[in-house]
């Protein structure tokens, strides 16, 4: 696997804000977080019995909300593949940790779940980490 070009030779995305790969990573993160929450709501809405269907997670497929969650997952994969065309894998993957910020926040907003001090501290540390990653990108692009 030696076909990776140096940063200076990485391909440029099409002009326009929507095609910015970092914005696409942000969409990926938002859609993944939405998918997780929709799947949770879908699972709660579906019948909770002890049948084989329920145990295999197939009972949840009867809920429209679950299908919305699956749709959000598929859409997030599209954004991820687009971003991979332009960004280094290690950086892009680390940025997707934003999911761990939006899932607890969404669960708090929409599901009424509690954010503990430990979880809140973890979210803050992830935010600092992502800011550092963003700064590292800015430094690399300055050099290019």
């Amino acid at each position, binding site marked *: *696997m*030696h*076909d*990776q*070009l140096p940063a200076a030779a990485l*391909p440029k995305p099409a002009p326009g804000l929507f095609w910015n790969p970092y914005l696409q990573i942000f969409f990926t993160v938002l859609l993944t977080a939405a998918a997780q929450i929709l799947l949770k709501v879908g699972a709660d809405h579906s019948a909770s019995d002890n049948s084989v269907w329920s145990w295999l997670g197939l009972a949840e497929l009867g809920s429209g909300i679950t299908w919305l969650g699956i749709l959000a997952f598929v859409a997030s994969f599209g954004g*991820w*593949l*687009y971003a*991979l*065309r*332009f960004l*280094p*894998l*290690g*950086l892009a*993957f*680390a940025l997707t*940790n934003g999911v*761990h910020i939006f899932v*607890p926040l969404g669960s708090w907003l929409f599901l009424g779940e509690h954010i*503990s001090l*430990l*979880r809140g*501290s*973890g*979210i*803050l*540390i*992830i*935010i*600092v*980490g*992502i*800011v*550092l*990653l*963003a*700064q*590292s*990108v800015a*430094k*690399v692009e300055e050099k290019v």
Partner: protein
Amino acid sequence: MSLTAWLLVIISQLALVAGQIFLKRAMSRREHGGEKARGWIGTLTIGIATMTVWFLLWLGVMHQVELSKLMPLEGISPLLIVLGAAAFLHERLNWRGWAGVGLTCVGVLLVSAS
């Protein structure tokens, strides 16, 4: 954790790293065009298949192992991806990038542990 569970965890994490590297290679090939673009769909398919293996193994492990023991492994996956990308894609991070990856790993560990 039993030896089988450890083995499943290690294979699933390797599948995650390998799957993401295949996806990245496929999309880079597609973008560069020309000779290199040939076969990108094949590489993409291998990537998706490897990610499917990771997902199924991870689900299997989650059935067998307590979540609290698995969460640290989820936390270190960004680090494994960065190491894999450095080894196979020759990607390099500056110190801010490494610090960012380290902090996000710690943050994910805390969120997962709470």
